[in-house]
């Protein structure tokens, strides 16, 4: 019997799932609805200088990185299993595409956040 390596992906899935269940909705509301429409939050919140200041602070940077990375790992894990559920047992190929895109997204997020300075 071969030991499964699933715990790595399952742990990331669980962490991302919990985080998105707790605060995902409010983040979508703030960044996608309340601030851009200027209804519940001021539109200036999304001005270049404000967002830059937020992303340059270590806490803001860390927050954005964790949100993007964990949301990605959560969703690709679910999508991978759903592909299996609907009969696409692409095996290693599907695994590489799913988890590979999460890894690429994580690296891209790290790169962008570091470039912001």
């Amino acid at each position, binding site marked *: 019997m071969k030991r499964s390596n699933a715990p790595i992906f399952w742990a990331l899935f669980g962490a991302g799932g919990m985080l998105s269940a707790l605060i995902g909705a409010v983040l979508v509301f703030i960044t996608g*609805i309340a601030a851009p429409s200027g209804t519940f939050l001021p539109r200036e919140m999304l001005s270049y200088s404000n967002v830059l200041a937020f992303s340059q602070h270590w806490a803001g940077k860390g927050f954005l990185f964790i949100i993007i990375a964990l949301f990605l790992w959560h969703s690709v894990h679910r999508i991978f299993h759903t592909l299996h559920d*609907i009969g696409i047992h692409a095996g290693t190929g599907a695994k590489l595409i799913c988890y590979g895109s999460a890894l690429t997204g994580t690296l891209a997020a790290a790169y962008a956040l570091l470039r912001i300075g």
Partner: protein
Amino acid sequence: MSARGPARRPFVRSMEGWWRKNPYFIEYMVHEGTALFVAAYALILLISITCLARGEAAWNQWLAVLTNPLCIFVHVLLLVGFLYHTWTWFNIMPRTLPPIIMNGARVTAATITRTGLAAALIASLIIFIIAASLAS
């Protein structure tokens, strides 16, 4: 009897379309589908910080997209998906936790779900208050 064929010939049924055959499974597929919403939002954030890293002009271009009514409408759909994810996540939670004993009795599934939903509400309020105070 043996003249009519082999005595044992077990028949294996197909799994084709299994999830369409039971409302419970349809709901399962829908809540698994919220992963697409979570992925979409993560990509939006990734694009946002990428544009931000490119400088003010790139950011302002992206901001024009974000403030477009169509984009706001897309976020309303995302919000519905996320809320459904929250609801289903905490509904499954009692099945995933080891028994929690309080005052000599096992905490019920309904209490675990309600506690999870309450935690989500409180965390959301805190995030919103932080966002509002950062904005002012």
